[in-house]
């Protein structure tokens, strides 16, 4: 009825398909919900996000939402938002702040948990497929220092520590990209010192790149080397359908609708939970074919 509510959203950037899906979901949802969206792309730079948020404050938007590039370093700007009485919603990554009242709620996935899920799946797999002996794991990390890379690694290691025979023998950064993923995997495969049983990739793109490297090395991905990855983008499902990837842990980018709902509630002054997790599955090769059609990203 009255003038539409204005939401300022600061996106990390456009570094991956996942991110694109995330942005699209938010934009569409905003249209649906009749919310005016102020969208700012930070090109992976925290300082740009801060600038964007401050300009949202200057523009006196009703709600500010953003997916932080990193956890720390938000106190000052969030305090400014608070002083301006603008509620702040975090999406898809948490922040570390001295005073939790600086943001209203955090909606989104939990990278550490994703890491754990990957770890758990692997432990079961090992029980079934390699009941005895060492299981050598190589890890393709995300961009050094980036939040998902750190957390997924943390979660994953936390679980596999339980199983001493699961060992990470090599770990190198593949910058979340196919090209790097492939390049690094090639190097891993050439280093003949240890046999590789499992590949754990911090995202699907790197996994897809690595799969190519494995094939070129004359091995069978998912058979000779088990492959675990995270995100659950379309490409991953196609790979699984083709039997080249064992499993991907979903990290749901479709936060749009929930976010818009939250924004409305917050402005309406309804109470909202401090932490809202999105339901995320673990998809294995056998369900892939069936799931593929209804993947939107």
């Amino acid at each position, binding site marked *: 009825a009255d003038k539409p509510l204005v939401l300022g959203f600061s996106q990390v950037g*456009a570094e991956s398909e996942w991110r694109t899906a995330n942005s699209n979901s938010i934009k569409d949802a905003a249209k649906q919900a009749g919310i005016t969206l102020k969208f700012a792309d930070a090109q992976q730079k925290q300082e740009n996000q801060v600038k964007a948020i401050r300009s949202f404050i200057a523009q006196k938007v009703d709600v500010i939402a953003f997916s932080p590039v990193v956890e720390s370093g938000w106190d000052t700007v969030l305090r400014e938002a608070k002083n301006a009485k603008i509620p702040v919603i975090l999406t898809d990554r948490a922040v570390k702040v001295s005073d939790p009242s600086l943001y209203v709620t955090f909606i989104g996935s939990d990278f550490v948990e994703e890491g754990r899920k990957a770890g758990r799946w692997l432990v079961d797999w090992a029980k079934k497929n390699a009941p005895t002996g060492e299981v050598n794991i190589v890890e393709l990390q995300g961009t050094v220092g980036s939040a998902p890379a750190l957390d997924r690694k943390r979660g994953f290691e936390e679980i596999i520590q339980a199983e001493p025979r699961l060992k990470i023998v090599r770990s190198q*950064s593949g910058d979340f990209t196919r090209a790097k993923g492939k390049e690094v995997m090639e190097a891993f495969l050439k280093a003949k010192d240890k046999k590789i049983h499992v590949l754990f990739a911090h995202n699907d793109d790197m996994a897809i790149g690595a799969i190519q490297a494995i094939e070129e090395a004359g091995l069978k991905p998912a058979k000779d080397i088990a492959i675990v990855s995270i995100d659950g983008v379309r*490409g991953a499902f196609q790979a699984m359908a083709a039997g080249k990837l064992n499993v991907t842990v979903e990290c749901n980018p479709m936060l749009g609708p929930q976010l818009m709902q939250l924004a409305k509630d917050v402005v309406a002054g309804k109470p909202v939970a401090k932490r809202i997790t999105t339901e995320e599955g673990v998809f294995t090769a056998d369900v892939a074919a069936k799931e593929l059609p209804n993947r939107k990203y």
Partner: protein
Amino acid sequence: MNRKTPVTDALPLSALPTPKRRRVLAVMAEHPLLRPIAALAILLLIDVILLPGFWHLEVKDGHLYGPLIDILNRAAPLMLAALGMSLVIATRGIDVSIGAVVAIAATVAAMLVNGDRPLMVAYAGALGAALLCGVWNGVLVAGLKLQPIIATLILMVAGRGLAQLLSDGQILTVYRDDFFVLGGGYLLGLPVSLWVVAALSLATTALLRKTALGLFIQAVGLNPVASRLAGLRTATLIFGTYVFAAGCAGLAGLMIASNIKSADANNAGLLLELDAILAVTLGGASLAGGRYHLAGALIGALIIQTLTTTIYSLGVPPEVNMVVKAVVVFLLCILQSSELRPMLRRLAPRGGAR
């Protein structure tokens, strides 16, 4: 006003190649490629010592397979970029838009292929797009006389945006085998990419040697004012180098896309320009313009790629990568410095007391 343009000076003499000597050895010692080659050799030596399987080459389904092949294969796009960059740099320019052009070319190619166009059309389209980028840069630098770094910065920023706009931010996966040949295929046991690079570098070298272009480019880079007064088409030459550089970048883009069987507009060729410039300088060229060494640039590219692969193979923890790279680059530079020998002599106990 043209008196303002800075000139390269007669001195410092060490900046100038000294005249031919009678003695062959001396000539060799003076050869510009000597130092880059030495640097590469040293790196490879280290690999041999640290990495058991490094020299290991086997024949897998009809082609050579092994770390060395990987390095060559991986270095191919960088070599191309460096090839183009070295001419731009020779004319006192610089092109930071290489990476963006790579992304554009890759995306265009992938789109055309996925649109079931014949391969050649896809290639033509991609290279065409790349050359257009080059024309754009060329016009800004040679025509409008913008400073190269800022002129190409514009495309560096906007170009990637364009690529993402085309691909809608998605990674375009390609499913056509013929597309994979350029970056992943093999010919006579060696990667196709390598043949392409070799062919292009030879062609370029021939062009520069057999025609007067080589002389002209050097002259323009060393002293634009004098060159203009001597009747050279300085602007046209400079324009040409940017188009050429973009063309090389486009080809590199095709290679990268073909190699990972997909075009990733967000990340393809990210920061490739920096590596290209580094390769050119490691190859012994000066960013002040003038002398260029195509072979040197190629070797520079190989040095960089060898270093990267080494780091991966050694199992260096990722957070240390950068430091290692930095240290090696520092050492290589110092090794290449013409000041090193006199300095050591001075440090030596009974060195020439002057």
